[in-house]
């Protein structure tokens, strides 16, 4: 059992040994002070400079590495490295989409030449997903730009869409990039996956190093297959206990972000371990890692195990080699949670760290509910929502928008039976509950998008959403108020017309 080890010289960052047990509603003095201290200490952009550690004279004592450090060491062909070090890393997969792809390609061509070829046509995965089902001409043009580049470069994995009127008429089209990457087997333990999207960290659920980068960095990777990355120190989150049946991974990550703040993990890796994490499905692990960036995290990781291998079985032929944190690995901080003490949460407007108990927001009247996105639009997210609607048997009191993340999720929503329903599918349950018809798969209104985006918030309304950010204007209207929540909480709220703890229906 890994003991709590604090990274020596960076204890200047966070002086307290932050061992938290799960908190209930009392905002304790402890939480307030550590939050304030953490905020102040995150001021430094640079990780503390470490002098290179030398092996002992016998050569047999080595510094233990964390999972993240090991991946970066292997990818940079080093045997040792320390947090704070900048290393050139070999990239296994580069992903881009319709918003950032065109810019990245522009830079690639400017820097490497009009006739330059990408470093590896099988390692670039191009996934249009952000602004797809819209009449916005520039948005449509951007998908064309992706296509032209893929044709010219003979890119192997391009999940194209041409017929915008009928997503099903596009055999290659997938939908939301982070979910597609997982479903198509591009996420493998031990690898380095970079993407031009902040939620690329989702793939860390597979025990790999995955993080978001910008167009310029992506242009560089396109030409070289490498990038200069700074090795992050790791924060370890130990979650133990049986997951209560009204809680989902979304509640766990909202708990954590509320604890450490939106800058609590800046430049750091977040490693999730413990019996609770081990009990999570791959999709739940993806939800957990997805919002690492909302705490400022560089990447999130869940160590690979049988759950991971099973998921990957039918999906990838490529060999992979998982890595794990050494027993002697040094962690910057360790946080412990007793999951059985946690309750369903929301993040109130306008910050993902504005944590509150769902039950304490029951007087907040809402105007709409949105269930979708890489965070909360996967198959299991819809199954979870359906479970709540089924338990209630009633109809929703507010417009409830459902946007499956990918084609596959959409098909699952229409075909998989929901346990305890006597064979009904999610779609049937949603229909009976009076939800909107599940829409074409894409990122949808999670980030607002072009004005005609389905479910975009064009008026100042209050929305409970299974998405990942709620800064001002996130879903469209600047004065819109977004409460981030789990699919259980979102469904429960839809049924009452107020922010609602799902235990109202699940117990």
């Amino acid at each position, binding site marked *: 059992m890994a003991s709590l080890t604090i990274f020596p010289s960076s204890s200047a960052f966070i002086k307290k040994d932050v061992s938290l047990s799960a908190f209930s509603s009392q905002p304790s003095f402890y939480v307030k002070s550590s939050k304030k201290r953490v905020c102040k200490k995150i001021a430094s952009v640079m990780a503390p400079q470490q002098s290179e550690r030398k092996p002992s004279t016998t050569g047999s004592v080595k510094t233990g590495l964390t999972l993240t450090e090991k991946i970066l060491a292997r990818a940079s062909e080093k045997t040792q490295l320390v947090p704070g070090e900048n290393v050139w890393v070999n990239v296994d997969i580069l992903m881009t989409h319709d918003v950032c792809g065109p810019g990245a390609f522009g830079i690639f061509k400017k820097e490497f030449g009009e006739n330059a070829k990408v470093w590896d046509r099988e390692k670039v995965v191009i996934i249009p997903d952000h602004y797809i089902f819209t009449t916005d001409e520039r948005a449509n043009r951007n998908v064309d730009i992706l296509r032209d580049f893929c044709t010219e470069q003979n890119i192997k994995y391009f999940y194209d869409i041409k017929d915008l009127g009928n997503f099903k008429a596009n055999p290659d089209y997938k939908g939301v990039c982070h979910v597609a990457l997982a479903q198509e087997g591009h996420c493998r333990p031990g690898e380095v996956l970079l993407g031009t999207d902040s939620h690329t960290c989702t793939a860390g659920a597979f025990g790999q190093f995955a993080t978001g980068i*910008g167009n310029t960095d992506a242009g560089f990777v396109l030409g*070289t297959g490498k990038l200069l990355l700074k090795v992050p120190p790791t924060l370890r989150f130990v979650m133990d206990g049986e997951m209560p049946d009204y809680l989902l991974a979304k509640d766990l990550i909202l708990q954590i972000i509320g604890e450490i703040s939106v800058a609590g993990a800046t430049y750091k890796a977040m490693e999730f371990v413990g019996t609770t994490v081990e009990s999570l499905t791959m999709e739940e692990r993806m939800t957990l890692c997805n919002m690492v960036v909302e705490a400022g995290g560089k990447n999130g990781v869940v160590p690979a195990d049988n759950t991971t291998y099973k998921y990957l079985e039918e999906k990838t032929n490529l060999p992979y080699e998982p890595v794990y944190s050494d027993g002697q690995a040094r962690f910057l901080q360790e946080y412990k949670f007793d999951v059985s003490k946690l309750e369903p949460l929301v993040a109130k407007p306008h910050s993902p760290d504005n944590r509150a108990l769902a039950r304490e927001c029951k007087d907040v009247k809402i105007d709409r509910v949105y269930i979708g996105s890489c965070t909360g639009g996967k198959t299991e997210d819809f199954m979870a929502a359906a479970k709540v609607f089924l338990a209630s048997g009633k109809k929703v009191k507010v417009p409830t928008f459902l946007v499956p993340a990918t084609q596959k999720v959409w098909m699952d929503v229409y075909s998989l039976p929901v346990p305890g329903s006597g064979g009904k599918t999610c779609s049937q349950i949603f229909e009976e509950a009076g939800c909107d018809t599940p829409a074409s798969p894409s990122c949808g209104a999670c980030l607002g998008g072009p004005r005609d985006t389905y479910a975009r918030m064009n008026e100042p309304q209050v929305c409970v959403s299974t998405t990942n950010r709620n800064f001002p204007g996130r879903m469209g209207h600047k004065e819109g108020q977004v409460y981030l929540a789990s699919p259980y909480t979102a469904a429960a709220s839809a049924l009452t017309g107020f922010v609602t703890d799902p235990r109202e229906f699940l117990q």
Partner: protein
Amino acid sequence: MAAAATTFSEHSAFKLVSCRPNSSSLTAFSSLKLPFAANSPNYSFKAWKSQLNPQRHHRITSPLRSTTTTPDAASTVTTFHGLCYVVGDNIDTDQIIPAEYLTLVPSNPVEYEKLGSYALIGLPSSYETRFIDPGEIKSKYSIVIGGDNFGCGSSREHAPVALGASGVAAVVAESYARIFFRNSVATGEVYPVESEGKPCKECKTGDVVTIELGESDSKLINHTSGKEYKLKPIGDAGPVIEAGGIFAYARKTGMIPSR
């Protein structure tokens, strides 16, 4: 001089100049943003513009790195000067450039300008003085002063690009979100400066400020209030910024071939 200046379109400013005699790294980096070659490596394009357009203050660089080794004069000082626009903590990328404008492709010169015209349009209406005046496409503020976690949220490179395209030369923040910081360094669009403490609490939008980045110490001078604030050294990103961005740095260190 005027003729040379007019060959450069508005967006062609290379934001950061470390004035050295042979700035091949400079040219390489400026080609990142320019459709045509830069042929005045020792001058900041923005300095040209400010000479023609005196009321729009941009960055003034003092080319102090000479070939001599006189102790004081040999230190490189980068300065930025202009009006500042003050914002708070956690200014996320949706406030810097709302998602609906992300259909604009930054590497397209016309769309680059358009992005600039929307910079910080996402700030709530509680910000009564807007960053860009109605009807204008550029901002009169060349320095943004922010609090904690500036640029949090998305990885969209459109964020530092929009700020740069609107006329911002540097941002001074208490801390940055990592992807925004990285993108600022990689593109060279805005120089991300870190402050000690929170000058955003005391500075007011419209104050005239100067940022002085020296080798041993750096400071923010508020001429309107008369106060000075300590700034932090750039740290690891220094060599990359100095080389002229990630591509120039990679060429310089032999990671990719020179052009």
